[in-house]
């Protein structure tokens, strides 16, 4: 599978088959996170993999965004001790964690795993359950498992997204069908 195929195949899988996810696969997923781009090469992240069913269930209880128990979960934390030494540091760390999460989810696709990124968790409760120290900030969690979710991919908007050379001049992609001239962009405000 090439990267583009993985990107197109990935979608948010929320319901998982009753089949555990092996540690070796989770290691490959997290290794992909380590190789994400990172501002100023700070690598301001920590990944906590959870596979114990009781712990996963406790996380679900305090996570309104987790509708079913996952078979595994990776909590992506920013490490404020590595990130916070310059004003933009915490913001960059947030982007870095997002890019690491996307890397992980794409490799998950290649490994045949479904995933869903989740922010709707009570972070204080998550911190308590996973015994996360103060210098780490849980930013998001990636639920993982073998897909048992038949729901279709959510549609994507392409209108008003891609422009060429200057905003509003030429819109769309150049593969023919959706390349078109647009009206002048409305004024701001």
């Amino acid at each position, binding site marked *: 599978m090439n990267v583009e195929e993985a990107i197109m195949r990935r979608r948010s899988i929320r319901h998982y088959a009753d089949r555990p996810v092996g540690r070796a696969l989770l290691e490959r997923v997290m290794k992909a996170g380590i190789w994400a781009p990172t501002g100023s090469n700070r690598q301001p992240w920590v990944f906590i993999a959870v596979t114990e069913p009781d712990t996963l269930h406790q996380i679900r209880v305090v996570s309104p965004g987790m509708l079913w128990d996952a078979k595994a979960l990776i909590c992506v934390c920013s490490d404020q001790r590595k990130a916070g030494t310059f004003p933009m540091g915490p913001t960059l760390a947030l982007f870095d964690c997002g890019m690491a999460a996307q890397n992980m989810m794409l490799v998950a696709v290649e490994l045949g795993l479904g995933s869903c990124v989740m922010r709707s968790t*009570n972070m204080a409760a998550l911190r308590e359950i996973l015994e996360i120290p103060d210098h780490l900030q849980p930013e998001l969690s990636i639920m993982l498992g073998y897909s048992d979710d038949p729901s279709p991919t959510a549609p994507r908007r392409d209108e008003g997204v891609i422009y060429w050379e200057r905003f509003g001049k030429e819109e769309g992609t150049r593969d023919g069908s959706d390349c078109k001239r647009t009206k002048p962009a409305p004024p701001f405000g």
Partner: protein
Amino acid sequence: MDQTAKEQNLPRLLDDGLFDLIGYLLTSARGLLDEPVEYGPFRLVEGVSRLCGLMRGSSSRHWELLGRLKLAIDNSKFTMMTNAEVFKGLLDNAVLEFTRSMKGGGDTDPSLK
């Protein structure tokens, strides 16, 4: 623990399920202060689905209605993110079905009455 609940000796599955539901509702309430407004109806209807599941598992006399409600909710709840009109229709229909059932004295499985 409240003495009444102790005496009634809630079945373990229901007790655990309700305990989990408290966690869901509490963390939803806190989370919704920071989340998109559309998440509010979604969290509520998800809570209804979970409650229907718990009551069905505990042989509620409203078993049949609860099953229909849960199925309808679970089949369409994600339209909240893709089609607001369908989501609204789901809620309208669910409210109507619930009200008709209530008005008729409860749509119940005769064997559980």
